[in-house]
Every structure is written in structure tokens, then in C-alpha cells.
């Protein structure tokens, strides 16, 4: 806040300087007119000789300036014109001097972005950030994700209601597991039930309680028009979600029923991985409620081998990486609502500290750095750049940040390609794979059911 004000004042004073340096120059440096009766700036606008800009010194033409003698009049005119020219030259040099003065005064280019802290709603973000960092040691996806979404809504979400839905859902899944006779300790069973909770209509025989599946929301799934489309709270309220909210809710519920499951990333996408009780891994694609194969994911066409070698895709995310992702969500929401400022840097630096190879965090950093670079370059204007080593340094850093993202093996996946890929899952061979995998998983479950625990 202080910084912001400070800058404003300096900016304004610089403007005043332009004016205050400019005006006296007009008067003080004009040589004394030869004929005192004649004003140095008569109105010649009618002949179109004098620049209109001098009009403000306009003084009514005195009768004395009228002379019947045409020659004399012309001579005088010429003199005056010369004088005016001279004045203009002087004026220009004065302006130049003034400009260099201003430049010197303005020499201190500001290298940090203006803060949005005065904007209403930013404080919720600052608070949320502090709380998330505090919760760092006892990572809870449910709590942290709520903080991120609540900050966007200016702390208007009902936490008690949210908690209640999560607890009830957890109870429902437990009850259904019991009803099906699944082993309550089997990770495969827990995940299978949770998967069904997302993809099928379930009803409890005991209470007749019914649960409808969550559906994929094709409309504005990137949250461009309505950012809240990517939120878990939106998913709970409308029963429709996308590849961000659905896996997050899955994991929140997995925590609730103490199932082991992980988030994994692919281009523009996230999905669930979980191990069965023998250690075989399954992928869940929640957006269409199917079990998917690794080769389906790598077939998207936008995963480079370097991306896998750098472990940016198709890996179980650790708690640290999850936290980094949530901080990135926080920064992303802030940018969406307000814009880029140094708060974004604080958040992203922390996110990158937790997960240095995170593609999303690195991209936000690249965008933030470019925004700052633009801001600095605009201040410098057409002054010689080599006088501003700090700005040159900034340009280099932006370049290297972008090439770092390339090195990670990231490749932009166009929206159409992404949609096409998601749709391809509904094709026959993928459906077959899904059925095979489901069979395998069910088999693993029945094996588990029949084993007698000691």
C-alpha cells in the first residue's frame, strides 16, 4: 500500500515537473523585445505563421501594432518572425534540458509491479495464503482447497455445510461398502466404491438414500468465463465438474474414508491413480467414469519423453506437490480476479520451492516475469536500454524461464486436441480396456473378500 502511494506521488510530481519546467522557460528565456510596445507573442494565427500552441500567450493586438507603412510593417513582421523562430529554438533547447532533468529525476525505474492490495477482496487471498502455509505441516486437502475457493468468494462459503457434505458422503460410501460385503480395510474396495460413487447411481437399501453420479461439464470447462467452474464447491452444488474439481473431490473423499489414492497429471489434465491390495496400479478417468490405461494417457500426443524423464506427468503427486498445486490454484484465482503483482510472486515462489518442476507454477512464473518486464520496459520507453542493466537482466531471465519450461518437455495442447482426446476414450477399444480393467479390479476384490483375516 505504502509503495503504491509512493509511486503515485512520484508519478504525479513528475507530471507537474513537466509543466512547471516548461512554462517558465517560455517566459524567462525569451530575449527582450526590441520594440517594447510589441508583445513578443503577438497573435499571428490569422496569417498562419505562428504555431497555434503559442496562442495561450495571446494578447489582444494593440492599436500601436497597426502601421500604415506597409514596408515597415513587413520589416517588423520579419523581425518578429525571426524572433519567434529564435524563441522556438530556445524553447526547444529548454525543453530538452527539462527532459533530461526529468529523466534524471525519473531515472529510478520501478522494478516491481504495482500492488492490488487496495482492491476489495485481496485481503482474503493474503489471509488464505498465510493459513495454507501454516497448515503446511498437517496437510489437509479438504481444508486447503476450501481456503483457496473461499478466498475467491471473499470468505462467503459455508464451511459447516461443506464439511457436512463431505462427512455424509464418507458415511454413505462406508455404508455401501458394508452392504456389498467388501472388506472395509481393502484399498481396492475403498477406491472401487469411491469410483462408483462418482460414476454410478447408488442407493442404500437400509435407508433408501440415493446418490446420483457426477457428470462432466463440457461448458466452459477451463473456467475462462466463470472461474468458479473449476471449483469443488461448484461440483458439489451442481453435480457437474471437470478434470480439476472431480479428482480433487475424489481425493478429499479418499482422505475421508482413509483410502490411498493419488493425483497424477497429464497435459491440461489430472486423473487418479490408486494401488490395489497387491500393489497393482489403476488409473481412474473421472471425467467419463472409466478406468484408463497408461497408453491411453500417453496417446494424447502431447506428452514428450522428456516430460516423463523429468517426472512432470503420470506420476503420483506427493503431499508437497499437492500443496504446491493448491498454491498455484490460489495464485491463479488471484490473477484471474485482480492481475499480476508481487503477491503472486510470493505465492509462486513458495509453490516452486515445494515442486521445482511444476509446469503450472513455472508457467505462472513466466507470465508474471513477462508482466513485470513489460511494466519496466514501458517506463523506460524509448530511452536507451543499455543504461538499465537491471531491465536487460529481466529480459534474459524471462527468456531462460521460457526455455526452462521447454526443457521440462512441456508442449502446449490445443483445446480441440484435448477435447478430441477426452472423447477418444468413448471409442470401442478404450471401452473394452475399461471393461477388462474393471473385471480385473472386481476379481481382486472378490479375492480379498474370500480371504480370512487372522
Amino acid at each position, binding site marked *: 500500500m505504502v509503495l503504491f502511494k509512493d509511486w503515485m506521488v512520484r508519478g504525479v510530481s513528475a507530471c507537474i515537473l513537466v509543466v512547471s519546467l516548461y512554462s517558465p522557460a517560455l517566459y524567462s528565456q525569451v530575449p527582450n523585445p526590441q520594440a517594447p510596445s510589441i508583445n513578443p507573442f503577438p497573435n499571428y494565427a490569422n496569417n498562419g505563421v505562428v504555431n497555434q500552441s503559442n496562442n495561450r500567450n495571446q494578447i489582444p493586438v494593440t492599436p500601436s501594432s497597426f502601421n500604415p507603412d506597409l514596408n515597415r510593417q513587413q520589416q517588423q513582421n520579419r523581425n518578429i518572425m525571426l524572433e519567434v523562430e529564435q524563441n522556438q529554438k530556445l524553447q526547444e533547447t529548454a525543453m530538452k534540458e527539462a527532459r533530461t532533468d526529468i529523466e534524471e529525476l525519473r531515472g529510478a525505474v520501478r522494478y516491481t509491479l504495482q500492488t492490488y492490495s487496495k482492491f476489495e477482496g485481496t485481503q482474503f487471498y493474503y489471509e488464505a495464503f498465510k493459513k495454507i502455509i501454516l497448515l503446511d505441516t498437517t496437510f489437509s486437502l479438504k481444508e486447503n482447497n476450501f481456503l483457496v475457493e473461499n478466498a475467491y468468494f471473499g470468505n462467503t462459503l459455508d464451511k459447516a455445510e461443506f464439511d457436512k457434505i463431505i462427512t455424509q458422503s464418507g458415511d454413505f460410501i462406508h455404508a455401501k461398502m458394508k452392504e456389498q460385503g467388501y472388506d472395509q480395510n481393502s484399498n481396492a474396495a475403498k477406491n472401487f466404491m469411491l469410483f462408483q460413487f462418482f460414476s454410478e447411481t447408488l442407493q442404500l437399501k437400509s435407508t433408501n438414500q440415493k446418490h446420483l453420479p457426477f457428470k462432466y461439464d463440457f461448458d466452459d470447462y477451463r473456467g475462462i468465463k466463470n472461474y468458479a467452474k473449476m471449483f469443488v464447491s461448484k461440483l458439489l452444488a451442481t453435480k457437474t465438474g471437470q478434470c480439476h474439481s472431480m479428482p480433487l473431490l475424489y481425493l478429499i473423499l479418499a482422505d475421508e474414508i482413509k483410502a490411498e489414492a493419488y493425483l497424477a497429471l497429464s497435459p491440461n489434465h489430472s486423473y487418479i491413480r490408486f494401488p490395489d491390495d497387491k500393489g497393482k496400479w489403476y488409473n481412474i478417468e473421472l471425467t467419463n467414469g472409466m478406468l484408463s490405461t497408461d497408453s491411453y494417457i*500417453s496417446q494424447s500426443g502431447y506428452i514428450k*519423453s522428456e516430460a*516423463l*524423464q523429468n517426472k512432470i506427468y*503420470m506420476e503420483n503427486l506427493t503431499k508437497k506437490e499437492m500443496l504446491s498445486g493448491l498454491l498455484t490454484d490460489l495464485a491463479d484465482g488471484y490473477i484471474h480476479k485482480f492481475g499480476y503483482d508481487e503477491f503472486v510472486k510470493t505465492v509462486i515462489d513458495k509453490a516452486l520451492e515445494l515442486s521445482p518442476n511444476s509446469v503450472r507454477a513455472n508457467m505462472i512464473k513466466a507470465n508474471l516475469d513477462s508482466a513485470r518486464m513489460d511494466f519496466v520496459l514501458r517506463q523506460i520507453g524509448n530511452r536507451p536500454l543499455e543504461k538499465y542493466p537491471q531491465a536487460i537482466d529481466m529480459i534474459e531471465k524471462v527468456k531462460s524461464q521460457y526455455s526452462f519450461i521447454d526443457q521440462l518437455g512441456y508442449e502446449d495442447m490445443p483445446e480441440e486436441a484435448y477435447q478430441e482426446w477426452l472423447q477418444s476414450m468413448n471409442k470401442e477399444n478404450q471401452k473394452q480396456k475399461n471393461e477388462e480393467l474393471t473385471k480385473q479390479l472386481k476379481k481382486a476384490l472378490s479375492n480379498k473378500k474370500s480371504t480370512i483375516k487372522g
Partner: protein
Amino acid sequence: MIKNYILGVLLFTVSLSVKAQNQEALFEKSLLTLNDMLVNESHYSFKKAVFSVENAYLNGKLDSLAVNGQIKVLKELCSLLINGRFLAYVESDKPDVNKWASVYQVMCDSIPIIIKDQEYRYIPFRYDFDDVFGNQELSNMFISKLLTTRKGNCHSLPYLYKILCEELGTTANLALAPNHIYIKHQNKKNGWYNTELTSGIFPNDAWLMASGFIHVDAIKNGVYMKALNNKESIALVMMDLADAYQKTFPNNDGSFLLNCSQTALSVFPNLTSALIMRAEIHKKQIEKETNIDKAKQDFKKLEVEYSHIHKLGYRYMPEEMYLNWLVSLKTEREKYENKKLTNFNKK
């Protein structure tokens, strides 16, 4: 008469063993050459490395003058292309991209050449579907064979490509897939991209990943699809040398092979061909072991070796499947072609 006969037989066997000794020496010499390149980076020459192996297998009969002459002609052809055609590419690494594009054209495109107002058509190299793994005759994998028959496979084609690039003063990275070698380049505009010489296409990584024979772990561990550096490439050649040795001396005691694989692994720890060869030698040693306890112990170690190879993501790919997969690049070209790259190579 009988004396003469015995003498003849004697002389024959002596000359045989002399021949064997000479060839053995050639293999030893080649291994020394390769080893030296690993220790002394300034001695690195992929061309020299590959031809030392071919020469050892051919028992010193590699016509190095002819081979070098042909490579020189190809290099000249590349230079002509670089100077004579327009390349729609503007980034600062254009000189390199231009060289890569010229080598690619020389290897995969038919190019019209005008000599004294007469137009000739240059015929590129072709893929040889016979004996793609060199099982019948190892020299089918050789560059010398490629240069004389103008037909090659996934071994000789990328090797020649790399050699031509280096002759032109630029680099090329070899990359591995199951039973397969291809080329990886990184340019400023597109990042990393693949060049597949057996079909002359720039496939995206999905083609390799979707083959179904590359386990994700193998990619993560850099077993496959990783741009190899020069040392790792020499490690690869070292395993070629071991294969050639095994084919030449099927009843060897394994020490030369072990030496090759150990050295290769020292610079490329996840080189599965070396890990497999080492494990197989260990297996043979166990079979010969008379001490039962020691054999049991060693067998446990062997199991660890094999499970390590499995964990890295290595899976065996049969020849027929391999060919089907290679062909899929042509039949499903639309799906697997990197479309960003198809344009700038056109004249």
C-alpha cells in the same frame, strides 16, 4: 602322400588359429579405441568407432578407403543442398537445422541433381525388410552394407545419419526404442523432435508410446526415448562390438563380453542390452559352477539382476511385432506425424 596330407591339415589348422588370433586382436583393438573415446573426449569420433567394430567383424576386410570416399560424396551432396536451397526457418539455430535437413534429404528424399545440363535423380536409401535384427548375418546391420546396397535398417540408417551430421560439423542424438534406434534433435522453434529414418517421417512421441511395447517406467528411467549423449552412443557401439564378438567366437569364455558390458554400463547404467548381456554371462557362469552353495548364492544375485531389468521397464519385443509397429507409422501416418515439422523441410 600321407605325410603331405598331415602337413596340410596341420598347416590349415595353424593358419586358422593364426587367423583367429588376428581377429581377436582386432576386437581387442576396437575395444581399446572405444574405451579411449570414453576417457578422452577429444578422441571421440562416431565414424571411427563404428568402423572399428565393422572392421573387426569383417576380419580387417573393411574397405575403409571406399567407405570414407562414399561418405565424402554424401557430405558434398549435403553441402550442395545447404547452399542451394531455401529453408523456411528463422530462429538463431538455423545453421544447424539446415544441416540436419540436408542430411535428412540425402538419406530419405530423391533429389534432382543437374550435372552439365543433364538432370539426374538421386535415389535415397531404402529400408531393408530382410533380416532386420541381423540374426542371419550380422553385417546386415552395417553401414558398409548400407553404402554398397543402399538398403539399410534401424541400425545402419541412424548411424550413418549421425556420422554425416558430425562430418558437417553439427550433432545428432541417437535415441532407443525396443529393438530400435532413431534420431532426436532439439531446435529453438519446436523443442525436441524425432526423425525416423526407416520411413522418413518425423513421428511424435505418441507413436513410440502407443506401440504398447514401451513401458512408461522405461521412458521415465531413460531406458528408451532419451536423447543419448556421445558417451552413451559409444556405449551402444561397444555393445555392437560385443554382439559381433559373440557371433564370431560363439564359444568364448565371456570375459570379453563382460568387459564390454561393464564399460558400457559405467557410462550408461540403464543400457538394457548391456544389463542383459551381463546377466546372461552370469547365468552361464552359474551353470558351470560346481560349488552348489555358491551357485545358489549367485542365482539369488542373478534374480536381482533380472528383476532390476524388469523394473527399469524393459520388455522383450518379437521381430514380427516390431515390423508391424514400424509399418504402423506409414499406415497411421496422420495420427503420429509431427505436423509442425513437415513443412519447413519442403523446398
